[in-house]
């Protein structure tokens, strides 16, 4: 039985992850998200699916000053964290954010700053616990800034860099840090896009994600795996070509 802390638990990918984790186990969950009603629905579902205890906490994660207390409370309930998944984030409206600093900050805070400060609190606890796996949902959008979403992408690049350092810090404490770089996933975040063959279902991501946690993997992973090669090509494209690729 695992004790699982989910930050941004209302995310479609996080929901699929929790369900999948119950495949052969009866885990305990502590779910943090900003919509109390939705958290309740998720908690009920996980209980019917065999979860032992499910605690929920409604909080807007962009209120940084609460972070320490939030994590403290989670630890009081779960005692220790076997798995932590950080899943919150927003895509934002790139075009309008380009001329609106409030929106730009909202994107950066949701995808980077809030995650960084929460991870600081979590890392302190897990360092003492001396075991566990932390996974964070980052994105291929952080691999190279694109016209259509570079504000979001830059925040994802920042969290990826943050995690590569955190991984080194926690290595000695036997805590693994997973950076999950995902491609296109069919969730509410991407509802407005038309879907093609490169798209993946949250359930597929969840299956691979749970297996990374179960196997205590450490490092950066592309999900699904083929994005590694797509991004390799995209990163290698010379600027004079890349700059002309308007559709990206």
């Amino acid at each position, binding site marked *: 039985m695992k004790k699982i802390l989910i930050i941004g638990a209302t995310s479609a990918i996080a929901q699929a992850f929790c369900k999948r984790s119950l495949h052969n186990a009866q885990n305990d969950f502590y779910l943090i998200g900003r919509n109390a009603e939705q958290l309740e629905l998720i908690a009920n579902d996980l209980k019917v699916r065999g979860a032992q205890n499910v605690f929920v906490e409604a909080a807007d994660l962009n209120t940084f000053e609460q972070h320490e207390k939030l994590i403290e409370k989670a630890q009081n309930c779960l005692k220790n964290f076997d798995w932590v998944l950080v899943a919150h984030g927003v895509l934002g409206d790139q075009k309008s954010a380009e001329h609106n600093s409030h929106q730009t900050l909202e994107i950066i805070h949701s995808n980077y700053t809030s995650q960084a400060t929460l991870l600081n609190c979590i890392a302190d606890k897990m360092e003492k616990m001396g075991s566990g796996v932390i996974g964070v949902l980052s994105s291929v959008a952080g691999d190279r800034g694109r016209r259509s979403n570079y504000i979001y992408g830059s925040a994802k690049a920042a969290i990826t860099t943050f995690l590569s350092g955190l991984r080194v810090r926690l290595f000695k404490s036997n805590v693994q840090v997973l950076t999950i770089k995902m491609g296109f996933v069919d969730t*509410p975040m991407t509802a407005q896009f038309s879907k093609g063959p490169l798209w993946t279902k949250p359930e597929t991501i969840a299956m691979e994600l749970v297996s990374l946690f179960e196997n205590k993997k450490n490092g950066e992973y592309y999900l699904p795996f083929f994005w590694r090669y797509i991004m390799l090509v995209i990163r290698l494209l010379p600027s004079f070509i890349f700059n002309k690729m308007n559709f990206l």
Partner: protein
Amino acid sequence: MTKSSWGHYPKTTQNLQFLHWPPKQLPTHQTILPYGLGRSYGDSCLNDQGTLLITEKLNRFIDFDPSSGVLHSEAGVTLEDILLQFVPRGWFLPVTPGTKFVTLGGAIANDVHGKNHHAVGNWGHHIVEFTLMRTSPQEILTCNPHQNAELFYATLGGLGLTGLILSAKVKLKKIQSSQIKQDMITFNNLHEFYRLSEESCEGFEFNVAWVDCFKNSKQENRGIFFRGNFDDNQIFETHKPSRLLQVPFFLPNQTLNAFTVKAFNELYFQMHRFKAGTNLTTSYNSFFYPLDAIHHWNKIYGIQGFYQYQCVIPLDNKAALQDLFQEISNFQQGSFLAVLKVFGRIKSLGMMSFPVEGVTLALDFPVNPKSTELLNRLDEIVMKAKGRVYIAKDARMSQKAFLAYYPQFQNFLKYKDPAFSSSFLRRIS
């Protein structure tokens, strides 16, 4: 992304609205229709030029009471998900259609039936309660046999037209094993089929038959009768969700013709004759869902799509069944998935439910003018025999036939939500 029905006919375009959470209110600027997994064959789950409310993400369980077996869940939960969760705990679906890729809400809206109709009735007989979201006024109503009872009965088999079912309580069935003990018996004519049905009605919860639409040299229809019960060996194994076998693309339209269907039927019959026997143990998955093993099997009918035709003929007119086979023979239009079953006496609860006591036959045919003509002829026979055709599988019946089958329709319309509509409704209105 587009959505179609299982028969890939008719082709429609609609706005898709994915419901990730129970909505706060329903859109009313366009006609709306709930859509589960699109396992209805015709146009009753389609809404050309309107909006489909896609419910597959409303797939959370809410509560389960192990003392009564009542499962409360959101309407987009699939029968497969229920099986995966509850078979290991010794519970099964009270009624199941021939595929597990169906949502709880979709099963209610067609008041689906299974191989145990003669023993336990339809899906609706096991629905304790549901919540229904309506538009004028925007409200959520709890419906059960005591509260909003008329709306409850109108929504069982209500084709998604009475509102959006948000959640429902269904009473699961206790089992002592996940395995079925089945008998497979060949029969040489419809006489033998009726005899087998009659004698199996008592001792067997599940009865169904496959029948060869092509008459043999004696001008008779042979077939295979399947009957069974759950075993009691305390083995509780679920199926493995797999996507291994699938038809990857639409086959050319000519793939299925009288010749290939005859060849298939011969092979199918001989294979089963070889395996025939009694007390054969099999998994629930292969017993109830043989077709689920091949994903997208519907594509074998080609891009044009196919018609499914399911009718029921009251037992006192059962000679009409012979007429149906005769007509099919005359048209040289065999169907390779012909399913025959006797519905029992238990009366359907839904106002528009399909099952009535009688013998039901399900067939499928590629969409083409010859099939259309044949099905119109079959309708004539069914109307004369005072039977009816299953709307969940229909894409072509005339308004006249529809009203003959469902004279209660005018009364049903009182319960329709004004914002809801479907391609089917517009076709027959």
